[in-house]
């Protein structure tokens, strides 16, 4: 093979600088403005302050999610996630929690699926360690959605090495590659 360069024009790295608001054209969703799809797909970066003394409870929850996914690998499927990052850091004004997710769906459009999942898996309980989390979260899911929206910090730059491919497409491509490799093995 002469070149290992990717020939497919659709697989072309791209970066997008975003205005301060996080969107170019205001499109009103149910809980606030909707954010556009970027080369890094959809996603959010939610940052909220951790209540004093709750750090360990937050950290322990990482293990809970690990177990949940191990026991039921498709437990988070409805979120259409690529990656999830949970970070704790002190910015000088106390410990903060950052929930950063990159996913394939517009959060506003799929928010009901997401909230149903959060409730069903118990993920929601980790958020009770955060300041501003609605006291009545069990019954007032509107307030929960509003919390996410209010604590969302839009990016001003997003980059994708392979922009706009969904997790489904990537998994399919890998399966095809696998199947093809098997096929070649059989032909030996």
């Amino acid at each position: 093979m002469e070149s290992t360069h990717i020939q497919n024009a659709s697989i072309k790295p791209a970066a997008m600088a975003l205005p301060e608001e996080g969107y170019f054209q205001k499109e009103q969703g149910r809980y606030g403005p909707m954010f556009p799809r970027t080369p890094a797909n959809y996603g959010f970066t939610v940052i909220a302050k951790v209540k004093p003394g709750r750090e360990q409870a937050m950290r322990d929850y990482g293990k809970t999610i690990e177990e949940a996914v191990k026991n039921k690998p498709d437990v988070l499927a409805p979120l259409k996630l690529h990656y999830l990052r949970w970070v704790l850091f002190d910015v000088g004004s106390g410990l903060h929690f950052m929930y950063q997710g990159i996913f394939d769906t517009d959060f506003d459009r799929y928010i009901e699926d997401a909230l149903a999942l959060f409730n069903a898996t118990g993920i929601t309980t980790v958020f009770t360690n955060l300041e501003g989390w609605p006291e009545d979260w069990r019954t007032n899911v509107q307030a929960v959605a509003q919390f996410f929206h209010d604590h969302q910090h839009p990016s001003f730059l997003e980059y994708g090495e392979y922009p706009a491919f969904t997790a489904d497409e990537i998994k399919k491509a890998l399966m095809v590659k696998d199947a093809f490799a098997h096929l070649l093995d059989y032909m030996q």
Partner: protein
Amino acid sequence: MLELTDIQSGVLRPRPTPYAAKYLVLRIDDPRSGRQLMRRAAEIVASAAHPESPDVDAWISAAVTFSGLKALAVPQDSLASFPPEFQEGMAARASILGDTGDNAPEHWEKPLGTPEVHVIFTALAENEERLAVRVDRARRAYGALGGVEEIWTLDCHVRPGEREAFGYRDGIGHPAIEGSGIPGSNPYERPIKPGELILGYPNEIDIPTPIPRPEVLGKNGSYVAFRKLHQRVAAFRQYLKANAENPEAEELLAAKIVGRWRSGAPLALASEKDDRELGADRMRNNAFLYYEDDKIGYKTPPGSHIRRMNPRDAIKDSGTKVELRRMVRRGTSYGPELPEGVLEDDGVERGLMFVFIGADLRRQFEFVQATWLNHSEFISGGPQRDPVAGTRSEPGDLTIPKRPIRRRLSGLPQFVVTRGGEYCFLPSLRALRWLGELQS
């Protein structure tokens, strides 16, 4: 327990077959006359409680736009309690709905999409005679009122063989609603919770749908999206002819595009050849699922129209709850037939007036329109759109799974053009009276 006596009959009741329908659009110029109109509407709109009443084969629905609520001088805090998409109206949601290019609101038939549309009456009956009686009754409710103007009407009627303009039997599927007593058309789908259709009841997600305030206004109401869709029948026929070798292959292609043969027989149950008896049999023509039998879509392509509008169990692996996207869908045809065999466009308007009724326009109608109809990510198909109902500015594709290799249908033009539409609120009967008794 559903308060059937308070819910408009048209929300729950499938449209009759055959049918005749008339849509009447009104503008309120004087809030006092508008309120009188609401009081009279409360008298002529049948409730869902008495399916055996004389209204069983003819009825009227009354729907109000956000501009209409303002024209009635509904208090500000109450107006503000309606969801944003309803407040903005369908024209403002054009980019979400795919109403761009030929479909854009600037090309819509006036007054649709303008703030002049305030109230939409829908009269439905089994035949023209009964319809005329209903329409007279509706017109008497506002005819003598100064300050209320009829600004647009549309007549719809059943076509020969109960077919829509492209030739397909329509009006087949409707969901069962828990507690409504009206059975759904698919015995394999469980009834959906009433809160998916009517405000103030448990829904499929335990997240209460916000109800407009005060409760008397919001409870037992629904939202409705009206869409007038022009059908380019000649273009559709030409496309089929150009992409099939013979008339039989044309019919199969027509079936692959929609997911049903023109007779109404679903590919899911008649994958090789048409079955007219099945197509006409209401007990069987919607009784199927996809997942166990046809996950890949060798029978019913995942991109076909009916599998997009309601994927049933086909996408359950993705964790998507299709129950959150169900709504009542009803189409009524307008315009004359394009005579059989004619392949040249005659420039005549013909198509469907579609209504989508549900408790949440954003979560149901807009989601289906944006995510299932005008996109294919949910079936890993990239930006492909619905082959027959998708809006598009450039030619589209349809992937038809087939052994040994799939067929890719390309060069699909736009066959359906949005001529206009409105988001309306379908108030309960109590709410109509409440609107009628507002004070300035």
